């Protein structure tokens, strides 16, 4: 007989991470100093792990608006939009957002996650949804909650999308749903081609602009504005927890569609509405976003500075063209160690490990605010360089050349940077097989196969030994010295190897590939 709770008590990953001091989640922030620096365990650290792109959460005007609204309407609406939870503020925000986004109508929903769940109501039994494999978890769940058929295409792979569209029944309703800016790797969807394909195959297009609204485009309206394809994009989704310094989400599009969702989406009608404080903060932020384009320009300048800063040191920031700057580490445990060292040196960033990224492509995700000062940014860069060298992620000396980033500035239509071969190969799944075997695989092999594996290993060792060159021998002789020099690093290295062993043989790697922040 099995117990529902068994999987919880058998779950090792958390305990291993806790025991080794490499547990990076649910960190408690005790105070905020203008959002760019926060206090954790009594220590001030620079925050480069938030999505507060324009730095508005600390803006006095936004704070004051939230306070005033709370004073006027109270702390909550105590009910759903459908019944008692609609304030004049909700209507005002919807009207202003519809105007801002050039859409017939807009609908605000209590959280960004719920906003994507609301999609379930319009995706019917005979509809087919084409979604990017790296779409945000809320989109994955929204589609899963519907009765539609889902067809996932490989990340930004337009040939694959076309193939799937061509295979679909011509009479079925179709919609292509993609993140505008992908949250972990910072690249932008290929909207021009998506729109072309949508026309060809008679499909609707929706973009999730959670990370793009307020960041991309001349006016900050997101991916579709950036590509000049607003008319061709049928539905746009955005969140208030990023550039809008609040909490909640918005869907904007044709009146009929928005009205239908307003009355049929369970995440709207069965959830308490946005609190007065949140709406007022979002309203004020919208005002500032429209009035102060210099914030966006500053944000993109910062993004460019950081990308190039990292690349000059020899780091790989992959395909990103946005203020989401992923720093490629590779090994998962090394990534945790890197994060730990960053934390100790006073930098708050987030480790991203499989399944959120491909195996072997663990990264430190950094993201920036328009309000970061140059001094703060330089400190972040210096810290990364020191740790990167110490942990062997980057070479001891800076490379002579690097490829500068191309940032997604208004009217530039850059989609992604030329990624390193390593990274590109990883996305193509070429590096998936590392040649190692786990206990589980081993236990499934016959004794003959096991013996074969062992003999192969002996063969390999013999070959290496037979090929030893004088310089290799010299290096071997120097190995004890090197080890001694690195003795400070030894516990960390052992940890890496040990944790590897457990992680490879343990469970907990079968999560949803779309489990992203």
């Amino acid at each position, binding site marked *: 007989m099995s117990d529902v709770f068994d999987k919880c008590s058998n779950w090792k990953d958390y305990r291993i991470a806790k025991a080794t001091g490499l547990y990076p989640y649910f960190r408690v922030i005790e105070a905020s100093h203008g959002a760019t620096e926060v206090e954790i365990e009594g220590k001030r650290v620079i925050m480069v792990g938030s999505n507060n792109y324009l730095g508005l959460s600390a803006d006095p005007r936004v704070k004051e608006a939230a306070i005033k609204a709370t004073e006027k309407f109270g702390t909550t609406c105590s009910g759903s939009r459908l019944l008692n939870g609609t304030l004049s503020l909700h209507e005002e925000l919807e009207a202003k957002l519809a105007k801002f986004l050039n859409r017939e109508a807009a609908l605000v929903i209590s959280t960004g996650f719920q906003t994507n769940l609301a999609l379930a109501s319009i995706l019917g039994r005979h509809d087919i949804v084409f979604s990017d494999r790296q779409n945000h978890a809320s989109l994955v769940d929204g589609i899963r909650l519907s009765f539609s058929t889902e067809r996932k295409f490989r990340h930004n792979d337009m040939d694959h999308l076309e193939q799937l569209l061509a295979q679909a029944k011509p009479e079925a309703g179709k919609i292509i749903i993609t993140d505008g800016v992908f949250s972990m790797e910072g690249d932008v969807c290929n909207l021009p081609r998506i729109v072309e394909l949508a026309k060809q195959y008679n499909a609707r297009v929706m973009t999730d602009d959670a990370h793009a609204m307020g960041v991309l485009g001349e006016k900050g309206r997101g991916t579709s504005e950036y590509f000049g394809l607003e008319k061709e994009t049928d539905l746009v989704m955005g969140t208030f927890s990023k550039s809008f310094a609040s909490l909640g989400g918005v869907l904007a599009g044709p009146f009929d569609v928005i009205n239908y969702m307003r009355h049929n989406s369970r995440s709207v009608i069965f959830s308490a509405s946005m609190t007065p404080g949140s709406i007022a903060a979002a309203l004020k932020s919208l005002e500032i976003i429209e009035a102060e384009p210099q914030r966006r320009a500053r944000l993109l300048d910062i993004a460019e500075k950081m990308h190039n800063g990292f690349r000059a040191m020899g780091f790989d920031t992959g395909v990103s063209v946005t203020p989401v700057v992923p720093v490629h580490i590779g090994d998962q445990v090394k990534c945790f160690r890197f994060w730990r060292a960053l934390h100790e040196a006073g930098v708050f960033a987030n480790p991203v490990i499989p399944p959120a990224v491909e195996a072997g492509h663990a990264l430190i995700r950094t993201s920036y605010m328009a309000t970061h000062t140059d001094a703060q940014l330089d400190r972040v860069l210096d810290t990364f360089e020191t740790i990167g060298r110490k942990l062997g992620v980057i070479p001891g000396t800076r490379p002579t050349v690097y490829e500068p980033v191309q940032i997604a500035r208004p009217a530039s239509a850059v989609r992604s940077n030329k990624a390193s071969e390593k990274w590109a190969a990883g996305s193509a*799944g*070429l590096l*998936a*097989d*590392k*040649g190692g075997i786990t206990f589980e695989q081993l236990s499934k092999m016959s004794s003959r196969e096991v*013996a074969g594996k*062992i*003999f192969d290993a*002996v*063969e*390999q060792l*013999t*070959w290496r030994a*037979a*090929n030893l*060159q004088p310089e290799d021998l010299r290096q071997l002789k120097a190995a004890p010295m090197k080890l001694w020099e690195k003795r400070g690093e030894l516990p960390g290295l052992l940890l890496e190897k040990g944790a590897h062993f457990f992680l490879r043989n343990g469970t907990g790697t079968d999560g949803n590939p779309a489990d992203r922040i």
Partner: protein
Amino acid sequence: MALPAEPPTPPTSSPPLPSDVQVTPVRDAAAKMTFIRFPASLYAGDPNWVPPLEMERKDFLDPKKNPFFDYAEVELFLARRGRDVVGRIAAIRNPRHLEIHGTKEGFFGLFECVNDAGIARALLETAGTWLKSRGMDTMLGPANFSSNQDWGLLVDGFDTPPAIMMPYNPTYYPALLEACGLSKAKDLFAFELSASAQPPEKVVRIAEKMRQREGVTVRAVNLKDFPAEVERIRSIYNSAWEKNWGFVPFTDKEFDHLAKDMKTIVRPELVLIAEVKGEAVAFSMTLPDGNQAIKAANGRLTTFGLPIGLAKLVLASRRINRLRLITLGIKEGYRRRGLDAILYLDTLRTAHRLGYAGGEISWTLEDNHLVNRAIESMGGQRSKVYRVYQRPL
């Protein structure tokens, strides 16, 4: 570099593609191992086949170890019928070749196939499609992976095993490739020479006269001064070969890698450098025919974890009695002065002194008449012909 003027004729009737054969790219370590091990079953029982060391092949196909992968793009394919592997091929896009020759020639290589024209066609079509999608208009091969390594298909001289770093294949391969619409692009020759035969009087006379008149001194390579010697040879090599058909200069990393590999098998007495007034102007490199030793190991250094193959290899390597003169290069401006004759002669004398029975001089281009005539005048007999095939895509 221009190809022969006449365009190859497209196939009149190609063999039908078998419906039950699947050609798939090699994407994981297990498939790569299958790719490496396939020839062992194909050549079982062939007395002239030299099984390559598995580990050597593994390193060769490892992008981290083989510097060719630093610039070139390679995809390996396996053909399977049900669960049986029936063929393999590599498709190669070599940007340095494209840049230097200004053509759109892609390569295929590591070709092995059972005697079935349909399967051969499936493999070649797959490689062709891969190359075509990368903008190539002609496919050349087999090349493993470039003209700096071994290339060409053995079309004549199946009676003896191949010399070190020369290809070998079953007798039915030429017919297979021709059935798939491939035609000759160029032939490469190998010559056989006995070390005990006296070199012709005339050649000796000319060589000695040249030696006197030009002040040529010939010395053996000095392994203690390895990096500097490699540097000298590199400069001669790249200058001597630049106008050859199909030649692409080594990258520095490739040359160093090759030099490192050679260092383990080379006999320094047989690597000769000719100097005029202290400047190195020509060199020749002759290697003991390691294939004689590698053959003894039968592909593996260990059996059941015991170094049986290694022991056999070491023992057999003491009994190597053949050589391969692998390169001879003369700097521009010193050609046609008999330097080649001096190097051939000194190599022959040293080989005789060291007790080698003879060996092979390979490979030379069929239309490099100057070199071919010089070898023949030394008493070389043409022993093998290798063919590079081509096909428009």
